[in-house]
C-alpha cells in the first residue's frame, strides 16, 4: 500500500490511460485532435474538470447516500464544466471558438464520471486529486500526440495557431515541416483520427509486450486477455 501514489501516477499516465487503455471519451478525443493546440486545449480543460470533480466527489463521499450518488456527481461535474466553459470563453476566446461544442461536452466524457464513481468516491482527497491530475495528463498526452500526428500528416505543420492559447507572441511557434505541402485530407478528417489512435495503441501494446516478456513470459497469456475486459 505504501506504493499507492506511484501506482496512481502510473495508472493515469500509462497502465490505465483514459485514451489508450480505457478508450473512454473517444468522441471529443477523435473530434478535436486535428492539431496539437486543439488537443492541448481540450486536454487541459478536461484535466481541470477531472481534478476539481475528483476532489469534490472525494470530499463529499461520506455525505452522499448510495441512491443519489450518481445525480450528485453529475451535478458537480456539470457545474465545473459550465464554469470552465465560461472561463475559457472569457479569457481564451479564440481557442474557445475553435473547440466550440466540445468544451460543454466534457460533461458527457464518461471518463470523468467513471473516475468519480470508481475511484474518487472511495478514497481520500489527496489520492483523488492525484488520480484526477494524472488521468487528465494521460488524456492530454494522447490528445497532443494524436494532434501532432494528424497535424503533421494532414497540414505539414506543428503548433499552428498556438497564439490562440498562449497569446500573440506564440504565433512564431508554428513549425512548417514541409514547405508547400498539399495536405493529406484523410489525416484531418475523422477516419484519420481512428486510424491514428489505432496505430498509437499498437505502439503502446508493443512496448508493453517488450517490457512484460522478460519477467512473466509464461503467465502473461491467460492474464492479459482476462485483464483487458
Amino acid at each position: 500500500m505504501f506504493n499507492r501514489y506511484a501506482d496512481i501516477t502510473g495508472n493515469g499516465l500509462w497502465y490505465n490511460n483514459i485514451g489508450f487503455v480505457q478508450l473512454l471519451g473517444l468522441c471529443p478525443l477523435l473530434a478535436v485532435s486535428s492539431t496539437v493546440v486543439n488537443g492541448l486545449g481540450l486536454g487541459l480543460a478536461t484535466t481541470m474538470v477531472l481534478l476539481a470533480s475528483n476532489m469534490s466527489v472525494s470530499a463529499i463521499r461520506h455525505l452522499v447516500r448510495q441512491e443519489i450518488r450518481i445525480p450528485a456527481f453529475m451535478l458537480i461535474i456539470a457545474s465545473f464544466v459550465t464554469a470552465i466553459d465560461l472561463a475559457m470563453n472569457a479569457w481564451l476566446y479564440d481557442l474557445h471558438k475553435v473547440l466550440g461544442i466540445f468544451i460543454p461536452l466534457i460533461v458527457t466524457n464518461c471518463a470523468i464520471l467513471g473516475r468519480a464513481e470508481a475511484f474518487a468516491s472511495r478514497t481520500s482527497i489527496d489520492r483523488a486529486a492525484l488520480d484526477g491530475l494524472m488521468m487528465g495528463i494521460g488524456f492530454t498526452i494522447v490528445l497532443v500526440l494524436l494532434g501532432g500526428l494528424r497535424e503533421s500528416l494532414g497540414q505539414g505543420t506543428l503548433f499552428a495557431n498556438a497564439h490562440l492559447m498562449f497569446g500573440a507572441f506564440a504565433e512564431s511557434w508554428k513549425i512548417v515541416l514541409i514547405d508547400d505541402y498539399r495536405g493529406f485530407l484523410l489525416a484531418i478528417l475523422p477516419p484519420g483520427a481512428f486510424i491514428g489512435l489505432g496505430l498509437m495503441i499498437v505502439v503502446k501494446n508493443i512496448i508493453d509486450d517488450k517490457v512484460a516478456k522478460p519477467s512473466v513470459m509464461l503467465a502473461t497469456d491467460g492474464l492479459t486477455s482476462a485483464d483487458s475486459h
Partner: protein
Amino acid sequence: MLFTHMIRTAAVLGIFALISTWLVAITFDATKEPIAASEKRALLRNLHQLIPPVMHDNDLFTDTITVNDPVHLGIDMPLRVFRARKNKQPIAVAMESVAPDGYSGNIFLLIAIRYDGSVLGVRVSKHKETPGLGDAIEIERSDWVTGFNGKSLSTTHDKAWQVEKDGGEFDQFTGATITPRAIVKAVHKALLYYQQHRDSLYIDSNKQER
C-alpha cells in the same frame, strides 16, 4: 422511517443542486464582462479588416441596426448591419449575412459594401465546411474571398453572379463547388438588398426608433 429517509436524501441532493447553481452563478457573473469584451474585440478585429479604421470616424460597434428579411436575404434571422461614417457622411456598411446552403449547414458571413454599392470585402466568420476542401473560404487558408473585392451589381450583371462552372465569373476550387456557390449567392443577395434599401440602412437608429 422510509419517508424520513426519502426526505433526507432529497434534501441532500437539493443542497448539492443549490451549491452547484451558486458556483455556476458566480462564474457567470465574473465572466460576463470579459466575454462581452472578447466578443466585441473579435468582431471589431473582423470589421476593421474589412473597413480600415482610417476610413471612418464613428464607433462601428454601436452604430448598428438590425434587419430581418427572409425573402430577400434568404434566411429568417436578425442580422446586424454596422455603419461606417466619416464626418457624418455614409462611407460603407458591414452586413452580417448567412449562406444557408453550404455543404454542411449555415455559413456565416460578414460582407462590407461601399456606399456606391461595390464590395469592400467579404469574410467568413463561422462555418462547418469540410476541412481541407471547403475551408479554403477562410482568409487564413486562401485568398479566394478577396475575389469579391470591388465587384458590384454594375460591374457584374445578375447572371454572372455564379461560380464559373455554372457560367458565372467566380472561381470554384477543386473538389468543392457547393461551398463557393453558396457564398456567391449570399453576397449577390446582400448586394441586391443593399441596392434596394441603401437609404434606410444608413438612417440614424435613434431617429428610427422614434
